[in-house]
């Protein structure tokens, strides 16, 4: 086994990690904003907004992310008005922006479904209690509905976000040299696919492991009410034995 080759490959792929993280972070953040808008449309009770959100979810959840990415990057530039638009063209000719856009649009569809389900699962009684105590709509949302819904959404949403880290690999299809693009280049140059892809795979694995741990920690912080109370938990499990 050529450990030098492994080390140099890992090092080269790791140098592309910041780019992968950038795509991931912006994609997820912009997706979150769009998802919130979609969720609001569906919950607001306005028929037009509801139909739009449903159609949106149908389209972006129903087609592959790669198709969406190609349509945005290669497809939209076919239109003259896009190429002549001073706002659209700088965005749509840039593969980085296109990838982020495609990821954001795609994850927004999934996330808005997760949020909608979480909002519906907030116990009606707790919302009614907030009403009955005279809380105005927004206060009620901020103090009761949203905190409960967030806690309900977190497990499914963290899965979606991990799916998104893996989706960043698609950026390599539109020439971006993030981790997957870098790995592919090394593979082409060296004809050693197994070693190279193993390195890339391990890095993705560790990345997702850290993200999963991070979310698990946030979930832990937010849900003391779902754990046994302090003294009770001491009765049940005195000291974790493995530690």
């Amino acid at each position, binding site marked *: 086994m050529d450990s030098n080759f492994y080390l140099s490959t890992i090092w080269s792929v790791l140098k592309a990690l910041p780019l992968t993280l950038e795509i991931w972070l912006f994609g997820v953040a912009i997706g979150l904003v769009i998802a919130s808008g979609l969720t609001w449309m569906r919950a607001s009770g306005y028929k037009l907004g509801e139909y739009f959100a449903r159609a949106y979810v149908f389209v972006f959840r129903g087609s592959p992310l790669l198709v969406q990415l190609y349509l945005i990057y290669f497809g939209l530039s076919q239109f003259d008005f896009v190429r002549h638009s001073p706002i659209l063209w700088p965005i749509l000719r840039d593969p980085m922006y296109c990838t982020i856009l495609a990821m954001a649009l795609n994850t927004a569809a999934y996330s808005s479904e997760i949020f909608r389900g979480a909002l519906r699962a907030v116990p009606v009684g*707790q919302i009614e*209690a907030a009403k*009955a105590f*005279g809380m105005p709509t927004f206060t009620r949302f901020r103090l009761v509905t949203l905190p409960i819904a967030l*806690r309900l959404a977190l497990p499914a949403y963290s899965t979606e976000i991990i799916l998104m880290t893996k989706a960043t690999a698609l950026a390599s299809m539109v020439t971006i040299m993030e981790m997957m693009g870098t790995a592919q280049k090394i593979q082409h140059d060296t004809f050693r696919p197994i070693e190279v892809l193993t390195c890339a795979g391990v890095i993705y694995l560790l990345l997702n492991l850290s993200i999963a741990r991070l979310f698990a920690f946030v979930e832990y912080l937010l849900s003391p009410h779902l754990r046994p*109370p302090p003294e009770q938990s001491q009765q049940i499990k005195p000291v974790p034995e493995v530690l």
Partner: protein
Amino acid sequence: MSADLAAAAKSASPPGDDKAAISVKDMRKSFGDHEVLKGISLEAHKGDVISILGSSGSGKSTFLRCINLLELPDSGEVRVDGELIRMKQGRDGRQMPADIRQVERVRANLAMVFQSFNLWSHMTVLENLVAAPTHVLKRPRAECLEQAEALLKRVGIWERRNYYPPHMSGGQQQRAAIARALAMNPKVMLFDEPTSALDPELVGEVLRVMRSLAEEGRTMLVVTHEMGFARDVSSQVMFLHKGEVDSLGEPKEMFARPPTQQFKQFIANFNK
């Protein structure tokens, strides 16, 4: 409601007195074709404790929920401390609140205690008590915390102030919910079967708290199946049957000589 009942309801309050703590006039409510409230009136003065009795499905919960507009009544008037909740005609022809700010203000004066507690599960008990006073009444947080601790001592769960609701027994949760209602300094308290979800051995601790509230002169409307509470603690008993006030009166009198066949049957079922 028969004519003499209407007269009895009227004579319970001095004529021309619109400063009843709460008054409801001719409230009606249907769900689809199902008329659940067929014109219910009620008046409570400061310090009155009115027990609302009736078999399941007679409209007791709907009546309470129409008072604080958790359900929209089809017609009728609600006044709290003399203030009429103003309604307007909605676009769909049904009536709706004219001013949601006014409704919120009135609701803040009508704290409600629910059958299933409905404490906010992501907040500790103390946070549950402080949330509405700080965010609705805009009182300073320090002052609210101090009051909350005092109230928790009073209902006997101060030791649990940093617990989350799911970590407490039903009786403790309901006492916390009552303390949460008291933290609003409400003019009228609405109780919807506060002990019905509790194990029998936990009913007593909640009833004791409610009895002490009655003794200190709180105005309360209490939907309950606790006949002992209705008979011994309340100042008036209202018996609902199929969405109408079947009978209304002094509890001792009502229980000693049930005015209607329906009420007689109702209490007979309980004594079985």
